[in-house]
């Protein structure tokens, strides 16, 4: 009997542990349940006039699950901040749920749970373009609005819209514009400091940048393209070499976060500060110092927050019965998906000394 007692003690302890865990999350789940009931009850009533753009009135009180590829990830946390902002504006409740490891199989469990909870919409970044599809189809069959952000699924019938940060064309043309604006109307020689020579994204952008330069910026001459391999020290060396070998250089574009930070750091501490302009794709957190000390006038990058923000707007519009294809309002702009349901957020966000503090990534 003694042994039996120990067994039951063990079980008791296990259950206490579970109980503790359950009560921790109880209040939040109760809130969700309440909101869900409210959403169900207000299907006919609680609507607000559309914030503008096309489409009818938007429902309030919707529950939206934001499912990133994995939690504990700064990029997705930044996207969720945008999603929360949209939810506040639209009177929706949103929650970020997801696995710790970015696999489709792990995400499936969370999609299934959200189907069970009966959320109104799922906004998901697919960890795997295929294996989440069966679950998303089930969500769709259960009447849940599915929108993808950041990473799409291959079977585009499984979701209503995909929110994509930007396009290669916009990335290329924005950087050309930034360097031209920084150098001024007289133009001059510029160079590119890229990542690895084999980096596919960067190479594609550089090709587009060259075409755009030739077509729109006759006074800018691209004299050299060098590769810093996304290594800070190597990138700084390459920047120094560029400045030595091209004495008339007026600007450097670095379409990679490591390269642009290293170049800016080198130039901010050199005699070239203010004489040679730097721009490119950089993280606001890393570029803040160089924007504020005047080394860099503008850098940019897509804002992950906009992915979450527009994901929620698209989801709420679709869940309210509006046809997304007719265009939908997201904040103060109207977005229209292309034939595949892809919505482009727009040109990369621009960071300057004046606005860089607003961006938390």
């Amino acid at each position, binding site marked *: 009997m*003694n*042994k*039996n*007692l*120990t*067994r039951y*003690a*063990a*079980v008791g*302890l*296990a*259950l206490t*542990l*579970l109980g503790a*865990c*359950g009560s*921790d*999350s*109880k209040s*939040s*789940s109760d809130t*969700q*349940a309440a909101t869900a009931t409210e959403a169900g009850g207000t299907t006919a009533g609680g609507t607000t006039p559309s914030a503008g753009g096309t489409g009818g009135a938007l429902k309030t009180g919707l529950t939206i699950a934001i499912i990133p590829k994995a*939690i*504990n990830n700064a990029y997705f946390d930044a996207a969720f901040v945008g999603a929360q902002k949209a939810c506040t504006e639209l009177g929706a409740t949103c*929650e970020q*749920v*997801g*696995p*710790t*490891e970015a*696999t*489709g*199989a*792990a995400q*499936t*469990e*969370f999609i*299934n*749970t959200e*189907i*069970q*909870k*009966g959320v109104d919409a799922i906004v998901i970044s697919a960890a*795997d373009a*295929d*294996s989440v*599809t*069966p679950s998303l189809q*089930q969500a769709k069959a259960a009447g849940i609005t599915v929108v993808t952000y950041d990473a799409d699924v*291959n079977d585009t019938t499984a979701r209503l819209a995909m929110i994509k940060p930007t396009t290669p064309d916009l990335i290329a043309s924005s950087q050309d514009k930034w360097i031209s604006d920084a150098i001024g109307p007289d133009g001059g020689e510029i160079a590119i400091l890229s990542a690895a020579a084999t980096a596919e994204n960067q190479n594609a952008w550089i090709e587009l940048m060259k075409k755009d330069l030739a077509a729109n910026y006759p006074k800018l001459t691209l004299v050299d393209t060098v590769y810093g391999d996304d290594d800070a020290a190597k990138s700084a060396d390459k920047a120094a070499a560029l400045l030595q070998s091209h004495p008339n250089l007026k600007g450097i574009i670095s379409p990679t976060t490591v390269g642009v930070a290293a170049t800016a750091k080198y130039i901010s501490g050199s005699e070239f500060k203010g004489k040679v302009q730097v721009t490119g794709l950089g993280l606001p957190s890393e570029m803040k110092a160089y924007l504020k000390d005047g080394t860099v006038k503008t850098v940019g990058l897509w804002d992950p927050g906009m992915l979450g923000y527009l994901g929620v707007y698209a989801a709420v519009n679709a869940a309210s019965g509006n046809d997304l294809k007719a265009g939908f309002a997201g904040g103060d702009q109207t977005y229209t998906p292309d034939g595949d349901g892809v919505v482009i957020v727009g040109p990369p966000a621009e960071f300057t000394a004046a606005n860089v503090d607003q961006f938390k990534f």
Partner: protein
Amino acid sequence: MKQLNRLQWDKFVPVLVMLTLLVGSFSNEKFLTTSNMTFLIQSIGEIMLIAFSMTFLIIAGEIDLSVSSTAALSSCTLGFVWQHTSNIPLAVLSALAVGFVCGAINGLLVTKLGLQSLAVTIGTLALYRGLCFALLGDNRLTPFPTSFTSLNFKGLFGTWVPYVVVPLVVFGVAFGVVLHATRLGRWVFAIGQSKDAARFVGISVQRTVLAMFITNGLMAGVAGVIYTIRFASARPDGAVGMELEVIAAALFAGVSIFGGVGTMWAVASSVAFLGSIRSLLRLKGANANELTIVTGSLLLVSVVIPAIGVRVSGRRHSRSPLRGALDPAPTGGADLGNRGTPDEPQVLARP
């Protein structure tokens, strides 16, 4: 005494499942619904199938860590053969054959070369995964026919019960009967108690162990096919980490990692219990980090508390039945098959 001790826990694991379902149904209205049960059963299908055959191996004092890679290789083979022949029955048979061969390789290395199963299957865990990438590269195959993948959505006879229940029940009953009601099953326990003693009483240890590895590979193959259906895709990095979920469930069920002890019903219940807890916690809004912590704590509790109990009662009795398992044995962990209690082979009492 040992039998009594283990039996109490074994019988309590099914009770735990019922308690979870009961508590769950009161604490969350979405939990005990047909659709959630469908998801729940689907989510534990592959793990439970492999756990059935893994139980045999662990009771016999062996282990197979390569099952997740075997399942993935079987899934990739299914995709590969389907892509090249457009013949689903042939593709499924090839997938099962791959499972058989993977298990046979493990078994032959362990029995013919006398290597430790832990070392062998850590090796094949990596090897089989490597073969997945060799077969498919970084690609995944998805163009499976809907008639095949829609199996996942179809319930039995149009009900909520997912099709995967059929293999679960069939294999569960079959493995349970073999383990607990046949001579082969008693051999497995005998081997786990002591390989030498088993050999002395005329049990063909090598053939039995080989057969168990092959069966385990085959079950991983079956799990690979079901995994492919569930995710409508074959991918070289599929099912990663599944081996730990399988082994954790078996240990939670009271199957001794030292061999010789364990029951099939407790293992099946343990998989169901861990699955239900996760489902319930997710519905209650727990995030993935909290789930990991709870699952880990439960496993620890299931191992630590009974051990403390036995240690305490061992002071009262002059001869503790589990002392061999708790105190560091002089042989160390090297010989997993030897529990050091050859004087207690109750399972051998009936030849």
